[in-house]
């Protein structure tokens, strides 16, 4: 076993490492499998500073599950209750509120900007008295576990750059995703599973695509790239052996392969050859570990009931929430879900109801499930989209139908667990749900806070690439201390 770890260490920093063996390091090379960058030049080309695998301070959370609501759900029909918009239904958005802020090309040509209130009612719930719309009955029951942030804002106004900004800290450019940063910064807790996994699902509403650059490793080693888990027979690309090849037979094939590779090593002396053998061993272990972790047949009826019947249908949001719990429980550092379909430019009342139905029960079930397993304390769960939606109607406003355009100035997300204060509502928007009036939280602040909960100082989690030191939070961001437990 020790040898196996050793070999992996070689893989990660083979040549330099080998030259240092005389220092007696070989026998302690255990950690490198879990923290691949440990043996590389630390912090990219840097020679000191951050050490991958060691948090900067005691972490509150060990893992993250990010329930990304892709397409941007309306804050005005979910968590940001604005009765004034109902009162002023159909009236023009006052210029004093809009203050000349830019609009997307989809509505900038509109002759008028009629305000529209939520089609659905809101009520207050829990000790915190948080307002939640009737579209989210399950979420309303767990508000005392949530920290609802109603004062998020971003810099981008279109999906692609806004998603990219949330995930990588920059609107453009091939920078590492948040999960890749955490994989780099903290390594994996499970040697048979990737540290960063991605699960996709799609609702019934009109939605925007997702892009693999959202889970890219950027300039970090590709071991940190998000591994997409798909529905169906083969959860990870090329995982399954052919029908007709048993596990035992694969084992024997690999043993033979290793023997022939060994001959090559004897001739060439390149440690890379042994590293390759070890990657095949890890692939083999993944072939066992991944089917086990994706198997929900052993989940109790209560659990199935809690997540809802959809959780038995692979590829649904509910199934992904259940899978997220299992992956997280098994030590996957960052589980990223994307649920598509939240882009309600038109037909908001109908579409948003369907979207909420897709996600409400399972999101709440995930929190409850983690809590009852004692895992919520160490797992940070995040729910939210890439921006908010306008308080005026896009397109024609009719008695019972309207749409909302993109709105980066103010929107709502929630977080739970992982050392975030439960049962609070943070930040406030104005009566029009247009501008923030209290405690604004920029995307970089949010990212700094997430890293903080995992024991990482966002200003110190750096990687030097092509002469520049990069951070997830680019050059700004501050931890939102008010929401820390």
């Amino acid at each position, binding site marked *: 076993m020790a040898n196996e770890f050793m070999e992996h260490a070689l893989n990660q920093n083979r040549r330099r490492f080998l030259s240092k063996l005389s220092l007696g390091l070989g026998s302690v090379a255990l950690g490198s499998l*879990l923290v691949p960058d440990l043996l590389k030049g630390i912090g990219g080309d840097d020679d000191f500073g951050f050490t991958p695998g060691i948090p900067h301070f005691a972490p509150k959370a060990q893992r993250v599950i990010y329930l990304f609501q892709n397409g941007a759900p309306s804050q005005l029909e979910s968590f940001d209750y604005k009765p004034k918009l109902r009162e002023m239904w159909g009236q023009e958005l006052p210029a004093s509120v809009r203050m000349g802020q830019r609009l997307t090309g989809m509505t900038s040509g509109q002759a008028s900007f009629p305000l529209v209130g939520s089609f659905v009612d809101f009520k207050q719930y829990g000790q915190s008295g948080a307002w939640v719309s009737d579209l989210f009955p399950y979420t309303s029951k767990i508000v005392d576990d949530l920290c609802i942030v109603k004062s998020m804002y971003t810099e981008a106004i279109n999906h692609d750059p806004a998603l990219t900004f949330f995930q990588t800290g920059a609107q453009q450019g091939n920078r590492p995703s948040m999960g890749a940063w955490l994989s780099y910064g903290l390594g994996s*807790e499970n040697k048979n599973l990737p540290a960063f996994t991605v699960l996709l699902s799609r609702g019934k509403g009109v939605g925007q695509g997702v892009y*693999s650059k959202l889970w890219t490793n950027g300039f970090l080693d590709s071991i940190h790239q998000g591994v997409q888990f*798909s529905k169906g027979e083969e959860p990870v690309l090329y995982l399954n052996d052919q029908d007709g090849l048993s596990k035992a037979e694969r084992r024997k094939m690999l043993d033979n392969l290793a023997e022939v590779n060994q001959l*090559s090593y004897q001739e060439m002396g390149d440690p890379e050859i042994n590293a390759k053998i070890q990657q095949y061993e890890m692939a083999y272990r993944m072939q066992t570990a991944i089917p086990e972790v994706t198997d929900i047949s052993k989940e109790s009826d209560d659990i199935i009931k809690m997540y809802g019947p959809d959780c038995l249908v692979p590829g649904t949001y509910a199934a992904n929430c259940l899978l997220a719990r299992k992956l997280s429980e098994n030590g996957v550092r960052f589980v990223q879900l994307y649920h598509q*379909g939240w*882009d309600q430019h038109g037909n908001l009342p109908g579409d948003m109801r369907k979207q909420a139905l897709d996600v409400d029960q399972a999101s709440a079930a995930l929190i409850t499930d983690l809590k009852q397993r004692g895992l919520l304390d160490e797992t940070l769960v995040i729910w939210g989209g890439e921006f908010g939606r306008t308080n005026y109607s896009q397109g024609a406003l009719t008695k019972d139908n309207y749409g909302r355009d993109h709105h980066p100035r103010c929107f709502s997300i929630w977080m739970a667990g992982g050392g975030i204060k439960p049962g609070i509502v943070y930040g406030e928007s104005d009566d029009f749900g247009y501008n923030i009036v209290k405690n604004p939280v920029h995307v970089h602040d949010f990212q700094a806070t997430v890293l903080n909960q995992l024991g990482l100082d966002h200003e110190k989690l750096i990687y030097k690439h092509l*002469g520049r030191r990069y951070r997830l939070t680019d050059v700004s961001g501050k931890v939102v201390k008010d929401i820390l437990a």
Partner: protein
Amino acid sequence: MRRIVFLVVSFCCIVSTWYACTSGSQAGGALGNMPDTISYNFDIRPIFSDKCFACHGPDAAKREAGLRLDVAEDAYKALKENPGAHAIVPGKPELSEAFARMTTKDSSQLMPPPNSNLKLLPYEIALIEKWIKQGAKYEKHWSFVAVKSPGIPEVKNKKWPRNQIDYFILQKQEEKGLEPNEEADKERLLKRVSLDLTGLPPSAKMMENFLADNSPKAYDKVVDQLLNDPAYGEKMAVHWLDVARYADSHGYQDDNYRSQWPWRDWVIHAFNKNLPYDKFITWQIAGDLLPNATKEQLLATGFNRNHKITEEGGVIDEEYRVEYVSDRTNTFGKALLGVTLECAHCHDHKYDPFSQKEYYQLYSFFNNVKEYGFESIVGGPETWAKKPKMQITDEDVKSVLKFVNKPDTSNLIVSVMGDNTDSVRKTYILNRGVYDSHGEQVQPGVPVAIMPFSNKLPKNRLGLAQWATDKRNPLTSRVFVNQVWQEFFGKGIVKTSGDFGMQGELPSHPALLDWLCADFMSHGWDIKRLVRQIVTSATYRQSAVVSKAKMEVDPDNIFLARSPRYRIKAEFIKDLVLSSSGLLNKTIGGPSVKPYQPAGLWEAAASTGGSLGMLGTYKQDHGAQLYRRGMYTFIKRTVPPPAMGIFDASNRDQCEVKRQSTNTPLQALAMMNDPTVLEAARVLAGKLQQEKSAEQDKINKAFRLIVCRKPGDKESALLADLYKWRLETLTQQKASKLLAVGEYPLPKNADKIKLAALMQVIVNMYNLEETITKS
């Protein structure tokens, strides 16, 4: 879990101690090991740049205390805040305020300040002290000085060098007490040079001929043969497609189809006909502005239109147009000049002497294109390219654009360059890089620190191309020669091939790089000649055997006392698999193809609603298109082909001059289970089955085709064991299942058990480390 955490932590502590002990040696060695004469360029600037210039460098807006340490006069003059003192007093570290601040025990005074998370190492401080003592002499950054051909160095071992390259390499080796490896054996050498020049393994016939040819010119003949193979152009193009961020979709939101592949066909053609590099880039930058521009020259300008283009409804047109112009500017900087110009998009560059103004001056060359940020997306071939565009007619492909592999008579349109002629779009500095925040208006220009822009040049892209290909331009030849070197040795003479600036790595062999560049330019920027020089050098021809002794002295193989050994690129893995099995379809160019791909990837990522587009579902090709070279695999930017990405291929999001080379379990899974590999194994097994030969011969032949050498006795025996075991354990039913992969027909009346057994042995051969390694 707790135990693992403990182990990790304790291990980390040990490793960090180790790093603390050794990082000095990485930076130059223990204190006793200091060079006699300290060089600003090689010893001091890397430290200053990394630790000081962010606040005391070129960026005027962020400069602290008015102090600049990157310019001698500023560093020597009286301090703004303390006119009695000077940051640096040549010869007198004890009077140099900057040095005092670097060494003070008072943390409120210490530089760099502790809150910057930067600090100077004792070795670095000692270097700086000695440098000041020796007179604190500044030098111009090495890569901004025009190329001057150095003399060929003297070496002791006069027998080894085959050409000039070898003198430079050997001289450094002799300094370090290293000796070069023996020449590689013929089989491995042939595989290496064949992969390097064509991206394909040598054919059986080539292997026979080369082994049989004992003449001293045998190798040179093979090199000529490979350089004349049209596959050479394909091989060289793969790197350039990364540089040029070529793809088959527009990128961004809906990520629909684009028909830019004729530009890719041109790149292959240009390499094959050996278009000199100065023309190669002139046509791409300014082909449309050349006098009496040909259609071919216009097509070449597609280079500057390969960037992503949004089709997301509701974007702000100008915001995206600015993005495209920036992309072109950044690509020009990274691809051709090897500098990180993009850093000056929002502010003056923090390390290199490029002002924000200069960034927008360069930007202005690319800012006059008749283009839109967003065009209507009503579908159809006219949206597959964006204005300005050119049409390629059937007549063109019969005459002036013969190299464009147009498969049918449908309308074919490509995005190319074209400037406004009636008026010139004004260019402004964009404050903080924000698209609508106009600052001062600027005129076309370049970063003067590189080389001033002559008044005699036209102030358009053609003038810019002339500036770039001027032999006095210090960067253009260095950057390209370095990229070519990187293609053959896995890393450049300057390891950071995308950053020749202050923060980039210094060249391992500066004299060699300059000699190659001077030679390259004085021989008409002849790319094939440069390539031939490299592959016929003794340096290139060494064996890749790694001895323990060399591993200790030179673990990173900086001194090339052995041939580098590394995995081939994603595209060439596929080529090797297809070629060795006989499946390869050698058609050059044409629309990109959609080979086998795991189901559901495009579908899961696509937009819903009315905008699924023609790339919403993956419609796999069939027949011969399945067996095209890897470089023709369709690249949809938001969901790039998985088997490529797993092996570090670029996602073509932006200009990339160097790929990572990683080794991951996902790669093992792909080689084990990708139907492309399995089908190739089955087809090769089928062919061998039909030959009248002994079973061991079939195994050996497959090994030769795949690994490109005869197997050793032990290898043969192990593979024969595997075959025997499979024969004994396979059932008809299992064999049928294993053979049921890929669309290529099964041979009739095959003995399924024998066929599947041989197939599995071949699958293992494809999975050998050596197979996909340049060794």
